[in-house]
């Protein structure tokens, strides 16, 4: 399953795989405001359909604030619904830096207690 938005020269695609314990979503390409609507839809569908989601961003080219805040919102949503959303630690350096630059060091704002660790805290918590 994949989506390709070539209208604005921006490209983002993804794959969703059902694993034994969690659904894995792998994003690729540029996660920018042009693809933010698509990213939101994918995350919503995943959260509606399962209890645990793993997100892999290791193959993305770039990520901007619009998409960073979507992952944060997805995490809050998961937390409220007592679901689990985790982000694979293998982030491309550009993405890791964009997240750090945006000041997403610690998103304990969602009230998690560490069991459902905030995806973004991996940058500083290792």
């Amino acid at each position, binding site marked *: 399953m994949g989506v390709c938005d070539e209208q604005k020269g921006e490209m983002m695609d993804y794959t969703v795989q059902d694993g034994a314990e969690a659904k894995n979503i792998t994003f690729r390409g540029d996660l920018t405001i042009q693809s933010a609507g698509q990213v939101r839809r994918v995350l919503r569908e995943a959260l509606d359909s399962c209890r645990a989601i793993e997100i892999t961003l290791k193959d993305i080219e770039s990520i901007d604030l619009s998409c960073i805040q979507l992952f944060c919102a997805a995490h*809050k949503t998961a937390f409220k619904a007592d679901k689990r959303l985790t982000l694979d630690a293998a982030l491309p350096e550009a993405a890791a830096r964009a997240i750090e630059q945006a*000041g997403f*060091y610690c998103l304990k704002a969602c009230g998690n207690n560490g069991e459902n660790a905030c995806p973004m805290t991996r940058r500083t918590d290792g």
Partner: protein
Amino acid sequence: MNHMADVQSEVYKEEARELLVVLEDSLLQLERSPDDIELVGQIFRALHTIKGSGSMFGFDRIAAFTHEVETTFDLVRNSEIPVSKELIDHTLQAKDYIKLLLEAPSPDEAPCEQDLKTLIGSFNKLVSDHKEAKTQPPPNTSTTITSAQGASSSNTPAGLVTYRIRFCPASDIFLTGTNPLFLLDELQILGECKAVAQTNALSSLEEINPELCYVAWDIVLTTDKGIDAIRDVFIFVEDTSAIHIETVDNPGGAAVEEGYKKVGEILVERGDVKAEELKEALGEQKRIGDILIDKGIVTGDRIASALAEQEQVKEAREKKAKEEAASSIRVAAAKLDKLVDLVGELVTVQAHLAQKANSQADPELVLISEEVERLTGELRDNTMSIRMVPIGSTFGRFSRLVRDLSKELGKEIEMTTEGAETELDKTVIERLNDPLVHLIRNSIDHGIEPPGAREPLGKTRKGLIQLTARHAGAQVHIEITDDGAGLDSARIREKAIEKGLIPPDAEITEKELFGLIFAPGFSTAEKVSNVSGRGVGMDVVKRTIDALRGHIEVESEQGMGTTITLKLPLTLAIIEGLLVEVNKDYYVLPLSSVEECIELDHSKNARRQDSRFVNLRGHLVPYIRLREQFGVRGDIPDVEQIVVTGSEGNKIGFVVDQVIGEHQTVIKTLSRVYKDVDSVSGATILGDGTVALILDISKLSQVGRCEGNA
């Protein structure tokens, strides 16, 4: 552009020039050590600062172009693009282009637009080539490289103030085309900066519109740039965003509070927590942050930003304490020149005072005069030391010259430097650049052989050029040594005879022969290249070094290499001289050239009155009578003095009435009226107000030789 903007532009240009030197130097080092991550970081930071400050001061073209280069280096930094020769070449060209843009009469002018397009194309190609070749993600993607923070921290001068900034952008900021992260980037350039995202407004996925911004930031910034510089960052969004800036710590301010604010205090100060809530929470034993979160009084990101502020203030204070000992200020060179002039005046007045005090026989006045003399001496030495700068920056520039020229000529050459920390007067260093360029070009073009020619001679393929600087008394010796072919004495002799510089039967030493390569139009090169061989340059080198009151010496062994030594005075502002007198007229001979003083007793040399030579331990030394040279009248004393000097390997004497003694003095340049007087390089004012002329021994010797030949 108003005056303030002009001043700021100049400051930017000056800083950018320095950064370009760092950039070039780092690139050349990176070429030798492509795995050095620290060098990649240095290059990135230099580019980042040039771009960021350029944008701030209205150098938009520089900012836009540098952004392209920075983007590529960002990928290098992330190990996504390898360090390659093409990358170094393109970036060096980019550095040259940035320099062109920087020196353009107007920031809006873009010289050689085509070059710009080509360069940008080259960088884009590097990136796209890599993307095509990329089959696997880079290993160890979680490696953290701190960039902007590193850049700012390495450049944080004294006078740092820590600010707390709350930035809440308009929710439709994305739609206006503004990326708030760029603004955070701009803040990073100003100093040590930490932004913590505030995500309270960010609710569930169902409710948010992906095209709107729900994030605000608490930012702690430590900078010396002032609050206006911070406001300037937000200039385009201030009408639509909520921006609150306040000072939280000023280590240089009058009242620095002891210790650091506790997290609770910071939160109360910010208005995030009420004082009563804090007091109540403090009654419990847990950490205040945890208690406040547990109670739902404040969110985790608020605590995170308060902790960040606490930490940053602490770091800024520690850094301030460390830097206080090594702080420096930038002063316009013209102000230093003026200071040297004033010190010169003071030295003259002090000498006058000393003379008067000694003649008055008043012990109290003598005491005061001696104290003034001591202070003046210290002031003079200190002032001179301010003008001294290390020669390393000049040496650094030649790495690029050697790299480019050896590439152009198909040679393999390594340049090493020694004594880069050796200090010389700023003016001497500035004027030394061109002569050194000529000498290095000559070494590369004529000295070092091509790799194919070196190997059969048992030499390494790679030729070596060594630049050495060292102190030698009141002089600095700069040596340019190569392990090339060396000078061909026979060819030089042949050419000198052909040019009429020496008669065919001349018996001259090898040293004198080598001295001829500095004659105007002299070149033994059979081919004239665009590098050298036209015989223009070496005479210019000689003239420049002469003008700096220096000497050049050449040593060479055929097949082994050449060493050219430039002997220069430490400063042009002061001269260590020998004061002499001819019928109440005073002259100063540079002490560095003086070898000895001997008597010329006319009663013993009566029969040799017309002779212009004196027998000095079996060697005939020619001499010049200053009395005749400067048309001084009056009686000739029975015993005159000959000051024997050594210039370019030749001894020559100067006959004077009396040698008064060593004299350190501040040099005054002569008025333009005397610009055609070759034999005098300047003047000085003695204690009693008398003017003494400073003699140019090299020029006087030439005059003497011409008269002798005639």
